[in-house]
């Protein structure tokens, strides 16, 4: 009789562990998938920037510091993209965003440039990519929050560490105005 009781308890515990473990795996997988969405868009932005610099350079010949800044920021962001943590990447990407803004601010001063189709396409694409990063980030952060919350709540927090589950980092944009309104206007 006692053996049956013990077996039932062990069985229930085993089921509980399996269910919790699988739940954590699912949540962590969602975080990874969401991160992949951000990654694709960040890379897309990196790819668009050299074209933008070339196009704007053709018209704005005296603005070399702005171009240098954006080129450097891009190089730093690309470098961060290969290995760094979400936090470090967010930092590099924030630098790139503000450098990009100054390029578009410069471009404002050249009306001929505004009329060039290639420039129009590039700015639409960059605006869109910026939007996509912003939305993908929101989704990613939501998934991170769900995952971290279930890691930190009882009773999961007791043994999550034993299975090697660690809290994930949020992907934060420094700019507060950007957080309030997702549509980025250049």
């Amino acid at each position, binding site marked *: 009789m006692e053996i049956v009781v013990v077996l039932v308890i062990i069985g229930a515990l085993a089921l509980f562990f399996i269910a919790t473990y699988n739940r954590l795996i699912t949540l962590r997988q969602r975080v990874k998938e*969401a991160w992949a969405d951000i990654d694709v868009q960040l890379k897309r932005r990196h790819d668009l920037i050299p074209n933008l610099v070339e196009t704007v350079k053709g018209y704005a010949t005296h603005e070399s510091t702005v171009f240098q800044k954006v080129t450097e920021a891009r190089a730093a962001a690309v470098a961060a993209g290969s290995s760094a943590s979400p936090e470090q990447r967010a930092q590099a990407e924030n630098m790139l965003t503000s450098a990009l803004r100054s390029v578009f601010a410069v471009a404002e001063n050249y009306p001929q440039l505004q009329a060039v189709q290639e420039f129009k396409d590039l700015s*639409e694409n960059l605006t*869109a990519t910026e939007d996509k990063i912003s939305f*993908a980030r929101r989704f990613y952060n939501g*998934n991170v*929050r769900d995952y971290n919350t279930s890691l930190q709540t009882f009773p999961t927090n007791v043994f999550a560490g034993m299975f090697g589950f660690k809290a994930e980092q949020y992907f934060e944009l420094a700019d507060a105005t950007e957080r309030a309104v*997702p549509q980025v206007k250049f």
Partner: protein
Amino acid sequence: MTTDSTSARLSIYDAAAANRWRTLLLIAVFTALIAVLAYFVGEYFAPGGGIAALPFAVAISTGSALVSYFAGDKLILAQSQARELGASEEPQLRNIVEALALGLGIPSPKIYVIEDSAPNAFATGRDPQHASIAVTRGLLDKLDRTELSHVGNRDIRVMVLVTVLVGTVALLADWMWRSFFWTQGGRRDRDRGGAGAIIAVIAVALAVLTPIIAGLIQLAVSRQREYLADASGALLTRYPPGLASALRKIAADKEPLEVANKATASLYIANPLKDAPAFFDHLFDTHPPIEERIKRLEAMD
């Protein structure tokens, strides 16, 4: 359907799962209703005929339910004369839709355009993996990027939350109407005994009630959904005035959308028919008054 009104961020995974269950439940109820209707109508025409009619009714109602579930989106898009966008057409709209899909972690829906100058939009599909969004030419012309983004956001969220349900309800209600009219044909008056009279009363009552029930389910789901969708759409972008100004522009346009009909009207972001007579006092509206929706959005700010 309150999943989203309480928490700031809806878990898309839970919403999609809940939605699938609601749709299945709805289809079951629909099939049962049609079967009961067929039984009593059969009994009414010929005593003992109810049982004979049952298998046909179940086959027909199951068939139509399956069609609405699996091909409903295509039927609705075809009825609305929507044309799928080519890869290079309307890059701005495509970009907006792709961004919104990323924000919800769903695949980018297919994009359709309805060549009509009345501004309106809807989304449809049985789940996020089989989703389409349709916008009219008028909407593309009249709304700016931000407003389009808010309309798209709202529509895509509706799709994930309840459109499967509402789309199915719309089509099923349509089927119910048809089966109702179909059973009206060939009715004969006969003298009957006690049991026959009771069955006749039930048959008539069901025949009258079925379309009303169908209509009311559709309307109730639809109207509540508009407020909910406005609210949850605004929550994602955290910028209610964006959707409010889009709605205002849509409301300012008095032109009805020709390709919309009774079955598809409830899918649109704003009532496309614009013919609601005043004496119905909003009981049969598919949408709450747009001014009221704008007011609620502004109150959220």
